[in-house]
């Protein structure tokens, strides 16, 4: 019963997430027991080499949130590919949560955020013409 409630209350948000690029789709999934309320959620950048090599992956990052809503003690808990870890940590460090009021207790439990990096085929028919794809130069 409880599990069903969670599923029902799960929200799929595609707004209020900061992304470095305009052509990246970002979805934010939260549920009713996610804990602290996100204030500024920063999306990680898809690593250039991973995108180039068509690599997808997931990273789970755990962290503490202080009274002011800043993230602390950010660490990777699990990941499918190390290439995604650095941008995930950077994104969590740049994210903030709603500060606690004076009468609110600081939860002792750590928060964990999972980032899923995926590449979806472009559905529409594209013209095979040179255009900007990469922002980074070769090393």
């Amino acid at each position: 019963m409880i599990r069903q409630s969670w599923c029902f209350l799960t929200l799929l948000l595609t707004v209020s997430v900061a992304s470095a690029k305009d052509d990246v789709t970002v979805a934010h999934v939260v549920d009713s027991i996610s804990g602290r309320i996100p204030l500024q959620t920063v999306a990680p950048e898809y690593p250039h080499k991973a995108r180039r090599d068509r690599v997808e992956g997931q990273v789970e990052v755990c962290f503490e949130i202080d009274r002011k809503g800043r993230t602390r003690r950010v660490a990777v808990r699990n990941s499918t590919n190390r290439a995604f870890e650095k941008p995930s940590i950077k994104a969590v460090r740049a994210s903030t949560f709603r500060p606690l009021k004076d009468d609110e207790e600081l939860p002792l439990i750590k928060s964990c955020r999972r980032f899923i990096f995926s590449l979806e085929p472009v559905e529409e028919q594209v013209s095979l013409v040179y255009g900007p794809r990469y922002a980074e130069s070769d090393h």
Partner: protein
Amino acid sequence: MVQRLTLLAMTMLAAVQVYADVEADSKTVIGPRNLYLYDGANALMAGNPEEGVSLTLRGLEVAHGLREKKIAHANLCAGFLLLGQAETALVHCDWVLERDPNHWRSYNNRALVYLRLQRFDESEADIRKGQELNPRSEKLKEVKGMYLDEVQPVDEEITIDDRRNKPQLPLEQPE
């Protein structure tokens, strides 16, 4: 477009740079004898394809031996592509590969030329040949990424999951 061309230039100039370095390291052999070639490579690396091609063509006129000619043609392939003259670039890449079928940098450059000409099958074949010769080349990986972006474009999607009860994450996989 500018970003794309910048990357293209950087990828192409990677091949040029090596020749310039080789020449810089062995000036007693090539440098004094063919300064046009040396200066042409440097001009290409400095982002001046007009001057680079001009100097390299003069270097080709006075080139001694197959090695100098290969350097000249390989750099002309890069230079003409940077000038937007892909058909001319192709002639120079072909010249090198006809004489040295193991020249992975020319496969790299010719793959870019084919990409510009939208001859995707030939571009893929050159990338494959280049990677057989030099499997760890980052340059070839970049070109392959550009090729894939043309034939199989993808959009990046990032999901941020804050749910307390998330599905199990697969075990860590090696890179």
